[in-house]
Structure formats: structure tokens, C-alpha cells
């Protein structure tokens, strides 16, 4: 069964269908290219898929694709020390450019949802220690 969702381009030679998943993968890759993005945040199902060894390139990406336009929601984790508005602006620009260039869709919105901050390893250990001391 072919996926009926996605963008269809019809020409004299036939039709080309771009699945929503493809748009999501492009968005995910474009987002992770931006400096300051630590990872995509895919929730419980995404984490299970990764544990099982399946690299999910569309993790943390939600797309709504219309006939000519698209709306993207990205769920990200940023690296500690970066200014979040700058990182988010970089993501919006890069994702819009990548999708418009590769699929021809017009990107109306790229909404960025920061789900967490990734601290370097040493900081994380300290954080855990402090959390423990708080619980005691």
C-alpha cells in the first residue's frame, strides 16, 4: 500500500509523490546541523526506537504538509552556553531553506520547541549529586 499522504507533483510523464516522512527527515537533518542543537527530542516512542537500534531521522519533528505549503514543529535539546533565540533563528532559517530547496514546498511556519538543555558531562554529574543531596 502506497502512502497516500504527502505532496504530489504531476507532470506529463507521471506523478511524483513526496511523503510527509521525507519532509520530516529533511527538517530533522537541517535542524541538527545548526550549532547549539544537541539532539532532537522524540519522546518515549522515539527513545524506544533508538534503543532498538533504529536511527530515527524524523525524531522530534512534526509536519503538516498541504498542497503547496508546509508547517513544521521541531522538538529540540540545546547545548549549554548557547543563546536560545539565536539557535532557534538558525534552525528556522536552515529548515526553511532546506525544505524549500529540496521539495519546492513553501514553508509557512517553523515552530521550535526547546525541551531541554544539555550540560557537559562534568556539569551533569554535579547536577545529579545536588539532586541527590536535595532528596536527602
Amino acid at each position, binding site marked *: 500500500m502506497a502512502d497516500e499522504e504527502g505532496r504530489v507533483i504531476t507532470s506529463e510523464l507521471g506523478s511524483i509523490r513526496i511523503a510527509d516522512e521525507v519532509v520530516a527527515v529533511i527538517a530533522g537533518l537541517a535542524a541538527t546541523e545548526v550549532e547549539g542543537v544537541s539532539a532532537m527530542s522524540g519522546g518515549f516512542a522515539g527513545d524506544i526506537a533508538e534503543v532498538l537500534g533504529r536511527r530515527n531521522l524524523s525524531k522530534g519533528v512534526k509536519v503538516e504538509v498541504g498542497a503547496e505549503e508546509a508547517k513544521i514543529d521541531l522538538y529540540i535539546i540545546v547545548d549549554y552556553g*548557547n543563546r536560545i533565540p539565536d539557535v532557534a533563528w538558525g534552525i528556522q532559517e536552515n529548515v526553511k531553506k532546506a525544505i524549500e530547496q529540496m521539495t519546492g514546498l513553501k514553508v509557512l511556519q517553523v515552530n*521550535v520547541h526547546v525541551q531541554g538543555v544539555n550540560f557537559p558531562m562534568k556539569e551533569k554529574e554535579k547536577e545529579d549529586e545536588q539532586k541527590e543531596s536535595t532528596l536527602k
Partner: protein
Amino acid sequence: MKSIRRVLLIVLGVLIMGTGIFLLLATVHPLGGTGLYLMHRYGQTVLLLVGGALTVIGLILLLMGIFPSKKQPETVLQTGDLGEVRITLNALENMVLRVVQQKKEIRGSKRKVVSTPRGLVVYLQVKVAADQNLPELSSELQRDVKNYLEEITGIVVSEVKVNIENIILEQVPLKVK
């Protein structure tokens, strides 16, 4: 759409868990012809393993259906031509923790960030080492938290409420003569 997904997860979970329990029961007390057939065909060990695995998978699916993952509360950082930028309050609380960690005098903390129309309000409950100037430490903490959050996120921090929960006394080991 989401409710259809939940119903599907519950139905699938019940079916898989039911099959798992049936297989587990078949190893102890075969129920009817199918149970006996399975017991003879695959043996007790295989049925126990498959039954156990199916029961666990079914239970997980059932729980995912009954208790859907709660969306973390977020606040808007900025709205532009290209869309919105949002951040979870949990991420902001971790940033506050980062500031608190840098203060040697603070021995433990609980943090809560609330988004209001006037800006963010940070509630900070801390345990402080003994012999500290508390007003000075508190105002320094308020200033650092406000500056850090505003610099990193660009959101206005309207209030930082610090509550000194306790004073931690360092334990001096007793000298044994």
C-alpha cells in the same frame, strides 16, 4: 485522532496481554484443547518466555493508552515571521539549577518556574551552609538567576523569590583519643 490512537493502544494492549496470560496459564493448567496443543508443540520453557514477553508488551501498550504522555508546559520565547519559539518550563528550571550550582554556599535547592503575562517568576528554595550573610547571598542569587535567564532565553524575569529552607551545619568528625 488522538483518542482513536488511545483506543487502538488499549485494544491492542488487552489483546496482546490476554494472549500472553493465556500462554502463561497453559504452562500451569492448560485451558482446553488449544492450551494442551501449544504445551505439547512448543514445551513449557518457550511458552513461559513468549507468554511473559507478550504480557509485558501488552501491559506497556495498555498503560500508554490509559495514561498518555503529558505534554510538558511551555512558554513562548519569541514569535517571528517564520514561526514561534517555545521552551519548556523544565528546561528553564534546569538553567536555574545551573546558576545555583555555581554557588559554593548553597547545599541543595528546589526550583520552580512559572510563566506569567509580566514575565517569568522563579521560586527558589535553598539550603545554605552555615555562617553566610543571607540577605547578601539571596540578592546575589536573585540577580544572577535573573541575568542568566534573560541573557540565554531573552525572556523577561519579573521576580525571583528565594526561600531559605534550612541552614546546613558541617559535621566535624569527633576526635577519638
